[in-house]
């Protein structure tokens, strides 16, 4: 797995951006950017080149599922790996995310080991 990949973390809780960012840095990823919701993320994704999106679901104005759908519908972004990290654990949520093309799904609260494994899994399948 390329530790130089550029990762965009999307979450409306700044604490979570900080937590996920620190855990990624512990996993030796150094190119980490942040966005506070789906629309801000889309702007960044369309302006720069990213290798992975790690996003929360429950955000305003654009939530994580809608961000995922926008990415999959965008010809330039459609193959971008996308990991959902969310408290949404109901079956219909997981199914909807999977059907929308999520690469992997992590339920909160999570630990560093789970994050590392899911990252490895996404890029092993890429």
């Amino acid at each position, binding site marked *: 797995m390329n530790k130089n990949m550029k990762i965009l973390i999307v979450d409306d809780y700044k604490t979570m951006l900080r937590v996920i960012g620190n*855990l990624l840095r512990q996993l030796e990823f150094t190119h980490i950017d942040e966005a506070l919701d789906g629309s801000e993320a889309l702007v960044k994704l369309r302006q720069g080149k990213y290798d992975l999106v790690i996003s929360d*679901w429950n955000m305003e104005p654009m*939530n994580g599922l809608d961000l995922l759908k926008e990415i999959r519908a965008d010809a330039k972004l459609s193959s971008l790996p996308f990991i959902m990290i969310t408290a949404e654990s109901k079956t219909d*949520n*997981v199914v909807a995310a999977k059907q929308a093309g999520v690469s992997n799904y992590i339920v909160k*609260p*999570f630990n560093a080991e789970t994050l590392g494994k899911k990252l490895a899994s996404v890029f092993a399948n890429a």
Partner: protein
Amino acid sequence: MPHHLANTGPRSSTDMQSLIEQLICVLRTRRQAAEATLVAELQSISGYIQSVRSDLSTIGPEVKSQYIPTATDELEAISETTAEATNRIMDAAESIEAMVSGGTTADKAALTAAATQIYEACTFQDLTGQRVRKIVTALHAIEVKIDELIATFTARLGVTPVEQPPAAPAPEEDDGVVRAHGPQLPGVAKTQAEIDALMEGIG
């Protein structure tokens, strides 16, 4: 038709008159019973309305003006306080992690592991924040319902009309849109293993 009025063959006009009189008597008796039932039902409904009016008159405007806003503010304060505390914990963990470069390999590993555990534990703030948000939304919905009830009975109670309540959150519709539900309660929330199994099972 009652058994004693059953048709048993040709009748004289006297017989027919007698039968009609019996029929009228039966219908009158039935109507009286139906009326009695109706009156009893109306009395029951009237008593219920009286009880609701009495309950509403004791709610008072402080529920809307004081209790619910106070509860909402307190919950939001909890969320802000935990966010501040979490950020301070994170500051401390980052400081500890920054010192890793100066120690032995074993020290580095131990400090990094400790910092990791602190970061992991700090995810609680996001979950509690989302739970607080759900409670605040529920309180607003209760506030709206109380407003609606009071407005309904305002004229009869002689109370000054309440202000137009804010729009209630739209009920979840079966429109094919999958909505966010927020954190599930412990025991209800799926584990990571269950999520993984679900992901594997979806084509």
